């Protein structure tokens, strides 16, 4: 089976989308990320626009990583984990993160698609897009854009996801490279950020194929 990242490129800009059931998956992923992970993570979790929440603090618990909600225009720093704040879309711009209150997408703000599309446009093949547990199909178009621009796409294993529909919708429309548990995703992101190639392996490839057949 074909290798993922056979060209051994550093894939160190990671975008993550999560909705219903996704906070737990995101915690597991961040918790399994090594302290010396060399890339940058930017995450959108569907959340209420009305309440300040402790989500960033919750995600920072029991990990060496600090999850922060950036300010508009903050320069992009590696080895950070950024979380889109309530009621703002978060997008990449040249060397910066921008926050804006543009039109809602999929009835939500922040939405996953604007982050993913901007990452694809700005960072191209450096990008790894990850869709975790959630309902609906915010993020599907974003993953397609990431793939089109040479990036890699990963979904949480629908069997592990509390709400499997966002990963499933991605599998239906995108050629998803890897389907993994949250902890396995952390390992894959580390390998990809270090420019390692990964064998997808027969069983994993067969599973992706089977999931895509079910669409």
């Amino acid at each position, binding site marked *: 089976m074909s290798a993922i990242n056979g060209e051994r490129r550093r894939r160190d800009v990671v975008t993550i989308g999560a*909705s*219903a059931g996704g906070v737990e998956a995101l915690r597991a992923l961040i918790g399994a990320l090594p302290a010396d992970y060399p890339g940058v993570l930017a995450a959108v979790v*569907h*959340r*209420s*626009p009305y309440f300040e929440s402790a989500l960033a603090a919750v995600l920072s618990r029991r990990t060496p990583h600090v999850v922060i909600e950036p300010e508009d225009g903050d320069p992009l720093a590696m080895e950070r984990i950024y979380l889109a704040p309530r009621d703002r879309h978060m997008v990449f711009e040249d060397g910066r993160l921008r926050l804006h209150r*543009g*039109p*809602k*997408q*999929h*009835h*939500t703000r922040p*939405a996953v*698609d604007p982050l993913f599309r901007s990452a694809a446009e700005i960072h191209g093949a450096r990008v790894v897009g990850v869709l975790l547990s959630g*309902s*609906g*199909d*915010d993020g*599907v*178009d974003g993953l*397609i854009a990431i793939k*089109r621009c040479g990036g890699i796409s990963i979904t949480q294993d629908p069997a592990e996801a509390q*709400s499997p*529909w966002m990963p*499933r*919708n991605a599998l*239906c*429309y*995108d050629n998803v490279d890897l389907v993994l548990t949250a902890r396995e995703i952390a390992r894959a992101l580390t390998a990809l950020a270090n420019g390692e190639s990964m064998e997808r392996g027969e069983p994993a490839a067969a599973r992706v194929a089977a999931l895509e057949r079910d669409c």
Partner: protein
Amino acid sequence: MRAFVPDPAEQDEQITAITCPDCPGTLAVHAENDHLRFRCRIDHVYSLQDLIEAKERRLEDLLWAPVTALEELAALLGEVIRIGKVIGTPEGYEDRIARARRSADMLRGVIEQNVKVNLGPGISPERP
């Protein structure tokens, strides 16, 4: 988004005759990998699933509007009788109240029957 008919040579976005669920604009549709994306002039974005859900929700909201109007009218006329401020005849008011309540009840029946499309097992109603 353009104003006139789409250029047949342009495969990118096609104008639809469907209005945006969240503003007065119309939607254009774009397909990539068979996944449909609808976008209005100001960039509200919907998947097909979002759009169906939004149109169903809007239909229910619209159907409740006349129920509210009819029941408010009946309540108002009832209060006018109670405080003795009838303009015209109380019989006319009683008759109107009865007709408004019947209409409201019929509409509640319509809403009761107006079961939403089944989007299959994959659709969770959860929204933030």
